[in-house]
């Protein structure tokens, strides 16, 4: 894939995530989706750029704000939407929901609901790659809110000590739920946490998806060649509330509008249009609409999982009671 083809493909992925989530929000308000729904809208360039920097067999995992990474990694819209609808055709058979998207075939290892709790798991996958002498890397995404919790530090401390091929990507969207960066961290340059572990670091704004790819690719290259982990702080912004129930009263409309001016999706769209790709993009947009509508129809028509599924997914083999 050349750079132009890649640009078009990354536009497609970002647009798909955006439209998938806008329609998810609509389905949520219609009562089709239960529980929590954390939208990634505004942050798409991080997952899409990161995915372009790694191989299909590299390990990835993220927080409960996981739809974007799952779709970027290649999960089908059908499997993703059906999971939101809690259906047996969902990626996690309707047992995980919005926060627990898993797609092992595409090396997407969740979807984790406890802030920071997944960080050691990613280090563990990187450990396994190193143990087996493979050149795979593990990418783990987390919010800046997870910078304060213990598991995050233990994962980084051990990953750096053992030079594990793990890339810690802090998606700093400026708000840990409703608490702003300034109110939650004494040091707002999160990348500097890397210094404490003797780990490589990087820090940049996610406006340009190509830059996201290139900067993450540099860390991936280091990890693959045995130089150990990197902490990357990617500065981004979520356009929606923390979850569907959040009216986001802790920030001003002007602030949100300002962030939307820097929307990475529109940036790549403008660039491609200037490059004469308008007709191609229109075709992509139409295909994305069809894909999302098809996913909703598919999710709607799919069956609920039955109770027979519960025991075999709790234990492999005989149930232990």
């Amino acid at each position: 894939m050349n750079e132009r083809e890649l640009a078009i493909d990354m536009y497609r992925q970002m647009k798909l995530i955006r439209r998938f989530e806008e329609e998810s929000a609509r389905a949520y308000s219609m009562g089709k989706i239960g529980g929590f729904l954390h939208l990634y809208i505004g942050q798409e360039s991080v997952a899409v750029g990161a995915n372009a920097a790694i191989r299909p067999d590299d390990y990835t995992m993220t927080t409960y704000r996981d739809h974007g990474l799952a779709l970027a990694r290649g999960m089908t819209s059908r499997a993703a939407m059906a999971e939101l609808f809690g259906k047996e055709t969902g990626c996690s058979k309707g047992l995980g929901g919005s926060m627990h998207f898993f797609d092992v075939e595409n090396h997407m290892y969740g979807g984790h609901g406890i802030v920071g709790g997944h960080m050691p798991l990613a280090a563990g996958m990187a450990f396994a790659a190193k143990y087996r002498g493979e050149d795979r890397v593990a990418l783990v995404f987390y919010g800046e809110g997870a910078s304060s919790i213990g598991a995050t530090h233990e994962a980084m401390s051990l990953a750096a000590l053992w030079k594990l091929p793990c890339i810690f990507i802090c998606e700093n969207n400026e708000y840990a739920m409703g608490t702003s960066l300034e109110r939650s961290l004494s040091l707002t340059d999160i990348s500097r946490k890397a210094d404490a572990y003797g780990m490589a670091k990087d820090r940049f704004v996610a406006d340009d998806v190509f830059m996201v790819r290139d900067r993450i690719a540099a860390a991936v290259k280091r990890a693959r060649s045995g130089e150990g982990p990197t902490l990357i702080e990617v500065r981004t912004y979520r356009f929606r509330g923390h979850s569907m129930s959040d009216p986001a009263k802790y920030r001003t409309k002007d602030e949100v509008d300002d962030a939307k001016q820097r929307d990475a999706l529109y940036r790549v769209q403008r660039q491609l249009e200037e490059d004469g790709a308008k007709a191609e993009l229109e075709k992509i947009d139409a295909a994305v609409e069809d894909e999302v509508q098809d996913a909703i129809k598919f999710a709607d028509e799919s069956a609920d999982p039955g109770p027979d599924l519960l025991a075999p997914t709790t234990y492999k083999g005989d149930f232990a009671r």
Partner: protein
Amino acid sequence: MSEMRFREAIRTAIAEEMERDGSVFMMGEEIGQYQGAYKVTEGLLDRFGEKRIIDTPIAEAGFAGIGIGAAMVGLRPIVEFMTWNFSAVAFDQILNNAAKMRQMSGGQLEVPIVFRGPNASARQVGSQHSHAMEHFYTHIPGVKVVAPSSCADAKGLLKTAIRDDNPVLYLESETLYSLKGDVPDDEDYTVPFGLGRVVREGADVTIISYSRIVHVAMEAAEALAKEGIEAEIIDLRSLRPLDEDLILQSVAKTHRAVVAYEGWPYGGVGAEIVDRIQRLAFDELDAPVLRVTTLDYPMPYNAALEQHCIPQAPRIVEAAKKVSYRE
């Protein structure tokens, strides 16, 4: 058959499984260069090298999670907690990651990991180092919990644990490490989970126990025999799954039961066993089932007070006599 100590039986199981399967490795605090805080892993670093016997910093949540992550992609880690007390700071990893990963991924993942280490009281190690942690962990669907009392079971249960594709919590006792016993040499000697063992036959009262307290119950049985009460002692070996059939068979024979174990009286393994007996063998019972537990206080340091709190043979004797209406 070879005579060896309990800690050697554990070590033998680890070494045999590491020889058998290259995906098995071990991590924990002081397990390598230091040779193990309780010498369980003595010699393993020399034998297997630092790639597979991994000393960790003091970061239980970190290395428990690393073990789980490695297991999610096919390795078979054995994670040692220097004591199970310290697993409390890794509780989230066990509860939310090891136990739930398979279910929340719709069955896509397996987590073949063993967590092991000494559990419950030792000798005057105070309130923060004397927890019986099985009562927290047996509550969780998705994990298996075992606790051997004999050297042979120490080997056989650990080998089964390492070969199991689910997370297994294997609980030892510091006070059993020097116990000697016969251990089968067979490299495929495994003890299946969910099967208890009658360690003493008797017709008058069933005493259900596991881990170190099995030995205390044996002491109690000798005292009871002198008073004409023959106790049947069951060593559960496995707490989740639980050998319900063996318990019910014995209760059907003796019609009386006492459950003796370390841990506080509120809820826990003993309450679960009592529930099953009253629910499934109500008509067999000639007396309410009693429990002999650690007393309901944080463990005191003072030696006499500690012994006062830990289940002792006289308390088991008293309970057995009470359910026999022989006070």
